[in-house]
């Protein structure tokens, strides 16, 4: 893969990641993450 192609791929990827981040935060996904993370995850500790 040429270096110019890689630069374009990186730029496109970073723009996509910013768009995804902003959209995801806007629709409240961080709240879902927070709600899961601040409670003991019974699945994670092996209690299902």
């Amino acid at each position, binding site marked *: 893969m040429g270096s110019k192609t890689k630069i374009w791929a990186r730029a496109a990827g970073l723009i996509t990641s910013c768009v995804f*981040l902003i959209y995801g935060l806007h*629709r409240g996904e961080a709240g879902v993450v927070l709600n*899961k*993370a*601040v409670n003991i*995850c019974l699945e994670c*500790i092996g209690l299902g």
Partner: protein
Amino acid sequence: MKITYAIKRKLLQIIALGCSNEHLLNFKGGKIYTGKWKQFCNPGLNCYSCPAAGFACPIGALQAVNGSMQFSFSFYVTGLLLAFGLLLGRAVCGWLCPFGLLQELIHKIPSPKWHLKKGFLYVKYVVLVVFVLILPIAATDYMGMGKPAFCQYICPAGTLEGGLFLLAAHENLRNAIGALFGLKAAILILTLIGCVLVYRCFCRVLCPLGAIYGLFNKFSIFHLTVDSHKCVGCGKCKDVCQMEVDPVKTPDSAECIRCGACADACPTGAVCLGFSTKRGKSLA
């Protein structure tokens, strides 16, 4: 004294471990941190049920949002993984992941050391697709909620970092131990034994986060280059690589965690690691 990549990396790994698990006092009471910082994801694998964890696990978070009633795809976590992957690739594994550091320390236990058969490297992609991506969306309950299948059935980080400490502190949790805990404990024991025998066994065989970041190694801004004009073909870079990668043939290998051991070993300075966009011609 030359500060090698090995020294820099170990220092950064310890700092990253401290930054991602700063609530050490929670071990005493068997509590977990419940503050607002947990809406942000750690770049590496670190269970959010670890008492000391200050951030969310990206794989846990991805499953939680994908399996939630409100959403079936997480733009937020996917965006974060895209950003981490494009910036660092699998350098996250080599420099920032707490569970990666733990595996490296365990590997120092004296024992026969084994090579990993190449076929095992593909298992983590199956784990990623089936347990992280498909099952939380497809296997839902009557309310439309999916379970974090990787966390529930496989993740040894959760069992070790969260399970053991929380179960030790709470009798009511110990009373709920069943067959699932037995399965997870068995996977944890096998993982720990595997890590003694094989360098970063979990990273290479099972880790879905490593699978994701490895895909970005071809594009990541932090990367490895081999200057073909300086390379004398001595093979020292390949000999020191504990991930069993040949940096000269495949500098962008999905298995390379950008540890820098090859760069430290190269006698001519042909192997470089960093953010610089100046690329040498690869021999591959």
